[in-house]
């Protein structure tokens, strides 16, 4: 399984290298601002929020890329001839996707934490608000990846790109519309589950 995950990361190294670079830059900036920064000035907040939508697009693109290459290059068909089954390949793929979401979420998390603490948008020890905003945002990032899995399952590159882009544009506003209550958790968790089930169904019943 570990080898499969490594292979997935290597296959999509462009995404991972970009995400790690951004995470390192924002991590250093975040630490600097926390200890030496001005109280009401921040670089992380505007840049973090500015890259949040491109980052969601990147998560989606990762999912779409994984499925698109699998569909066109028959990667899983080749791997299935070795001592691995389709379930392991799919699990490794999703784990790699989740890893990318976690790494790519670091700049966004930094921006959210900075915004909540510096701008004093809410009341009292802000721990609750951190979680209320961070967890749905992370779930949304993973949902974008899962939507990418749907859009990428085609042998037409244009359909894959436009599909991923369109579905992402539709999905991202959900957090703006529903806010940070329980409903957003329910919607995103069910959506992620539905996307993974559908992707697995397509992946496991595909004829090669």
């Amino acid at each position, binding site marked *: 399984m570990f080898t499969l995950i490594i292979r997935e990361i290597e296959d999509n190294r462009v995404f991972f290298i970009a995400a790690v670079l951004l995470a390192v830059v924002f991590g250093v900036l975040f630490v600097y601002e926390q200890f030496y920064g001005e109280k009401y000035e921040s670089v992380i907040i505007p840049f973090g929020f500015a890259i949040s939508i491109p980052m969601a697009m990147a998560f989606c693109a990762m999912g779409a890329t994984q499925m698109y290459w699998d569909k066109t290059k028959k990667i899983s068909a080749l791997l299935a001839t070795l001592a691995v089954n389709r379930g392991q390949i799919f699990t490794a793929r999703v784990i790699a996707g989740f890893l990318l979401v976690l790494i790519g979420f670091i700049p966004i998390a930094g921006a959210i934490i900075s915004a909540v603490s510096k701008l004093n948008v809410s009341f009292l020890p802000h721990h609750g608000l951190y979680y*209320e905003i961070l967890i749905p945002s992370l779930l949304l990032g993973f949902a974008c990846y899962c939507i990418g899995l*749907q859009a990428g399952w085609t042998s037409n590159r244009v359909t894959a790109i436009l599909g991923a882009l369109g579905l992402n544009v539709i999905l991202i506003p959900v957090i703006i*519309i*529903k*806010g940070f209550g329980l*409903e957003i958790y329910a919607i995103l968790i069910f*959506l992620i589950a539905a996307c993974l089930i559908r992707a697995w169904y397509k992946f496991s019943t595909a004829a090669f």
Partner: protein
Amino acid sequence: MNARMKNLINVIATGFIVLVLLSLVLFCGRLFFWAHLIGNMPEDSLRVIIRPSGLVPGEPASQQTKPQNLSASEPPGPNEPNFRYSQVYVSRNREIIIGSAIGALWDITAEVIPYRDANERVYYWYGSKSDSYICLDKRSGLIIRNYKSFKPYDKSVYRETEFYAGPNGISEKAEPSLGRFYDPIVTEGRDPNRIGLYDKNTRRFYFIDFAGGSVSKGFQLAQGDNREPIADYSVAGIEKWSNNKGLNVSWIGPEVWNAEKGEWEKQWLSRTSKGYGFVDWWDFSHTFIPVLDKTGRIHIYNTKEQSLSPAGYLPMPQSLFTGERQNDVAMPGDVLAYEIVPVYAIKRLSAGSGNSPDNFDVKYLGMCVACVSREGTSMTVVVFDPNGRRICRGDTTSDGISTAKTMYSDAPLAGTILFLFENLQPPVFEVASFLCGDYFEPSPGHRALFILPNSFVGMLGRFKGLQYDREVFFPILIGPSLILSIWLALRVRKDATIVGLSSMAKKWWTIGTIAFGLPAYITYRLTRPKETLVTCQNCGQLRRPDMETCHRCGSKWEMPELTPPNWRICD
């Protein structure tokens, strides 16, 4: 898991994805046209002015006046040369009403209070400068007042103290002898050292004075009393008592013309001993405290006489399907926003700066209560006298017709497109909106994706008028959605026959498409069998290559040889 079950799970998963994504698209469409309708409303229809308010003794009968280009700080010209009457000025902010459909904005700006943390504490107040707070510790049932002192020129805490208050007193330690509050309603206070609360369990009012170190027990509701307070006006006095979301109510007292200064002077003499002054919302003496009941009734709690008497109610604003229901009481969950502004005449009896009730003579004059309809399309304000009788009611109107109706008639195209967008929702959700739209909170209703309590059909569902009207309007409102669903169901059925679904599958897809409309149709298109059909040698129609028999005529792949009949045609 067999293939049929796998396929069913795939269909459900696909259906959910389609439903969520389609609902988001439809939401954006509805929001755009709803914002257009709200934005199209004239400025005058966002305000209500009642002048004279009728709350000041000696003024003539109150009446609603036409709003002109006024603001709360610039009252209209004098009614008489040297005097102008008191007035109630109510306005709402259309941007904030539209913003109620943006959940993230709403959640962040709402400053969610009370906030709960992992330690089972409910926070009511937080002083950002002093980093101090007031909270309820749910485990002990005690109210905690936290104080922090800081070293000068240093952020580090010098000293931190906590006081614990229970029904029986205040202590620096959480002692069992303090008793416990079970389910208290606490309102944030201007003075965090003085808190008023109502304990739902013991049904008693309390007043906690952290500065004085005392807890005084107040009025207790009897066992048979069916009143259930849900909010009380903090004894300490709060900024505004409301669930204010884009609603501003102000009572402007009578003013006299000061010829020497050349300006209007307000008759606010509350801080002096010269005479009675008029004050809205803040009773310095804490003698009269408004209490809101869960039924929408408002009572005045007299702390001196320890009595709770009727003072008014939340008025029901007009909606598209209702007329002016003068005496209807709205429950707090029926309206998008409400605000209650009590009015007092206060006279200081003795010199000094203390705000003890004994230092004041207070007369309760009545109150102004304003509500915004749950759809955000209309607003109502009612003025009550000290005995809780309605003096005057004002509604937002445009040319004498309620804004709840003119909003749609002023922009018919936007209203029609909004209606059509609503009808792209599945019929089953339309029916649910009709039946249970009332069970949704007004604000989340604006952000609803599936069941739409603020849709046309949802508004009709809340209409408690004649049954006849509901029967007439319901099929009209749900008609387009139903027609679309039936048409899509027929298309699905036709296609299912072509691709060779079983009769059971066809039946379920037809029922599903009638119930869920467009999302079901899209789901069908995404999950239908995609085999390339071939021509049946027996019947000549298209048949599935993956099935043993033709789903049209039932013949097998290998056709039997044609055997000549035993009969012959003879002359």
